[in-house]
């Protein structure tokens, strides 16, 4: 009996392994020296939270980028190459991120990783991508950690980093709510900590009376909001992703706490937060009343600013290629980021190589004009993304920017200066020529 079972076990293991080996034969291989590029196509891969706690809102970003690529492809692509984007779900779990990025690089043979979303997720593949010399462009996160061209020559941030954003928000608080007690609710990772550092650069330490971290994945913010309320804070700064902005505001409402709310750009898109407020409160909170008046910032034109020619362009692309998603800040984000990638591909020229793309961003990136309100901080050593933001406020459920764009860099000593350049109109066919 035992012997037979041993045989059975061995045979099962062998068949199992044979099955693995058989499926292994299906892997694709590409010819030529630079993977992911042919004369007619270029393939990027990305990892996105299509499900899980970060999915609401953020799951719209990569499909919006894809919509813009489809728009470009329909007009012939870049130098005759159609841009393909392989989108894989990592559910905001870094083990999955590592897995899908390996799959895209080793099996799908992508040219580069584009717009990988999330700080705790993407930090786990930066080492692999740089060691393999694979372009890791325009990460969808404002972590200051992407900005290190010396140690990570292939990784590029895109949005303003959270410290820059925190500094500019902090300066506004210092100027307009001087001497008032400030409480900070922040996600306990590089996003929240970076933002908190930026606030601390500007707001006097004595005024910050409560700093409350939360972990993504928790289902309540009652302890944090209660602590901020009991500290007597009149201003609550919130470095939160949309779902926790919503949970935080519902909790404040339940507790009868009405501070002046200040929310980082990533956490305030009114369409997303409004929908979450309604879902979480089971329909009791409708609309965006709970975030009305919140102070925030932006580095792209607001999605509701329909007089802006960039928004008009993106609405056109959205209507044609991505109509099932609502036209909100996430869609604008995805398309603006995609526009920057096309700028990089144009700059890299006809003979596209991985190193060529990186060189082009280093050399030309800081001069690109586009949907952004301020220029990029790109050079060989600086890989930071947009160098500033404009202050904004939620009015009638829409983000209204005011005061003009401000720029700075992440170091505590550097000053915040107004940006005086003007935003150009998009090219008539909507495709950058740089």
């Amino acid at each position, binding site marked *: *009996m*035992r*012997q*037979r*079972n*041993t045989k*059975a*076990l*061995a045979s*099962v*293991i*062998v068949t*199992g*392994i044979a*099955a*693995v*080996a058989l*499926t*292994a034969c299906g*892997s694709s291989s590409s010819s030529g020296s630079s993977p992911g590029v042919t004369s007619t196509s270029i393939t990027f891969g990305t990892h996105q939270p*299509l*499900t899980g706690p970060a*999915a609401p809102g953020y*799951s*719209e970003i990569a*499909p919006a980028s894809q919509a813009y690529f489809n728009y470009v492809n329909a007009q012939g692509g870049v130098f005759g190459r159609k841009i393909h984007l392989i989108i*894989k*779900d990592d559910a*905001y*779990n*870094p*083990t999955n991120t*590592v*897995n899908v990025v*390996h*799959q895209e690089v*080793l*099996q799908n043979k992508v040219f580069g990783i584009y717009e990988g979303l999330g*700080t*705790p*997720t993407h*930090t*786990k593949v930066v*080492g*692999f991508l740089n*060691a393999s010399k694979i372009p890791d462009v325009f990460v969808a996160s404002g972590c200051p950690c992407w900005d290190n061209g010396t140690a990570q020559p292939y990784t590029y941030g895109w949005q303003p980093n959270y410290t820059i954003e925190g500094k500019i928000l902090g300066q506004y608080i210092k100027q307009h709510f001087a001497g008032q007690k400030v409480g900070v609710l922040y*996600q*306990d*990772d*590089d996003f929240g900590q970076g933002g908190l550092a930026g606030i601390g650069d500007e707001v006097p330490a004595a005024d910050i009376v409560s700093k409350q*971290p939360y*972990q*993504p*994945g928790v289902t309540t913010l009652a302890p944090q909001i209660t602590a901020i309320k009991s500290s007597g804070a009149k201003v609550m700064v919130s470095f939160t992703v949309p779902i926790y902005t919503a949970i935080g505001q519902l909790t404040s409402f339940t507790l009868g706490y009405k501070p002046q709310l200040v929310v980082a750009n990533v956490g305030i898109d009114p369409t997303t937060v409004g929908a979450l407020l309604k879902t979480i409160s089971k329909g009791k909170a409708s609309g965006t009343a709970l975030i009305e008046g919140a102070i925030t910032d932006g580095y792209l034109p607001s999605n509701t600013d329909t007089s802006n020619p960039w928004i008009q362009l993106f609405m056109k692309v959205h209507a044609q290629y991505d109509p*099932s*998603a609502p036209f909100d800040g996430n869609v604008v984000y995805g398309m603006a980021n995609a526009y920057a990638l096309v700028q990089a591909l144009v700059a890299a020229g006809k003979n596209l190589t991985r190193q060529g793309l990186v060189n082009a961003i280093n050399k030309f990136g800081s001069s690109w004009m586009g949907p952004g309100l301020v220029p990029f901080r790109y050079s060989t050593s600086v890989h930071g993304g947009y160098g500033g933001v404009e202050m904004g406020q939620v009015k009638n459920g829409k983000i209204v920017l005011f005061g003009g764009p401000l720029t700075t860099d992440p170091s505590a000593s550097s000053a915040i200066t107004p940006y005086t350049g003007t935003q150009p109109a998009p090219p008539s066919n909507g495709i950058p020529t740089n």
Partner: protein
Amino acid sequence: MRRSALLRQSTLVRSLGLVVVCGLVLLVLSENITDYRNTQLAEGAYFFAVLAGLTLLAGLSGQISLGQGALMAVGAYTVALLVGNEQWSLVPALAAAVVVTLIVGIPVGAVASRLRGPYLAGATLAFAVGLPALADKFPSLFGGENGLTINPPTPPSWLGSSFSLERWEAWICCAGALIVLFALYNLIHSGVGRSMRAVRDDEIAASLCGLRVGRTRAVAFIISAGCAGLGGGLLAEVNQLAQPGAFPLQLSLFLLAGVVLGGLGSLAGAVWGAALLVFLPNWTNDLSGSFSLSGNVSHNLPLAIYGVALIGAMVVWPTGIQGGIRTLTALIRARLSARRRLRVGAAPEPSGPPSSVPPSADGSG
């Protein structure tokens, strides 16, 4: 005949033979597959280590644990801290991961000895939910929500410069899996394994026979914890990370699903379960990607397909894949021997047990 007599007598010899055969097969396999398939092989190997421990616990000892994901986190953090901060080399770090997880398993095992069925599942559920949050409580040590990142292992130079990192990782994980296979195979076929089955089948009868029910249960839990610790340590090494978000409750649930689907109580079932955990998410993603659906549907479709596959498999094979295979092989054998009997005349089979023996779901496979 003498060789088979030796095989029959010595579990040790049989298990060594099994490990050598499996090791050779894995070696040949890893030489002939792409780098990405090697990362999948590594993933399958560390899942096998965890599932083998869980199958011992659930199949042999009859205890349900939802805490294996958290125990994996203990192993992963141990390796990440020792390799990343203390510059330990990999083997002692993995050994330490097993030891630390065994130690963490002792108090939980003590609880496990007093609880059964859904109550143990509930207690370990709390463990799975609570433990990863510790990383956020001590951010300076555990890196908070960002977790810890470690450098990838370097393949030794004697393997040649073209030897890929992915294959080296697969080798490391397969070595770990083979150690678990060897250890558990011997354990299952030892007195301890028999005690566990006795306790599972009838607690009162077992204690009347002089078995210490509580201690047997606790030992089963602690051993399964050690396996989870090794699996978690290997996960940390392959993915170069230890982070709270990598060990959500879903991981524990997927592990339990994997072990049930593979076939409870058998090491071969753990192999199937590990293969499912590796391939099923990819298949469901590809399948849902092949339909053109709106984002809201297609993003969540893989999970739905996963659930339907689970339900379907449990309806078709209530004893898991390994149970299904046993039923099938028994059927085929019955057919074959019936035919042979027809041909030879009504002579009985010269050797081997009668083929009408029903497939057993106990731990002897």
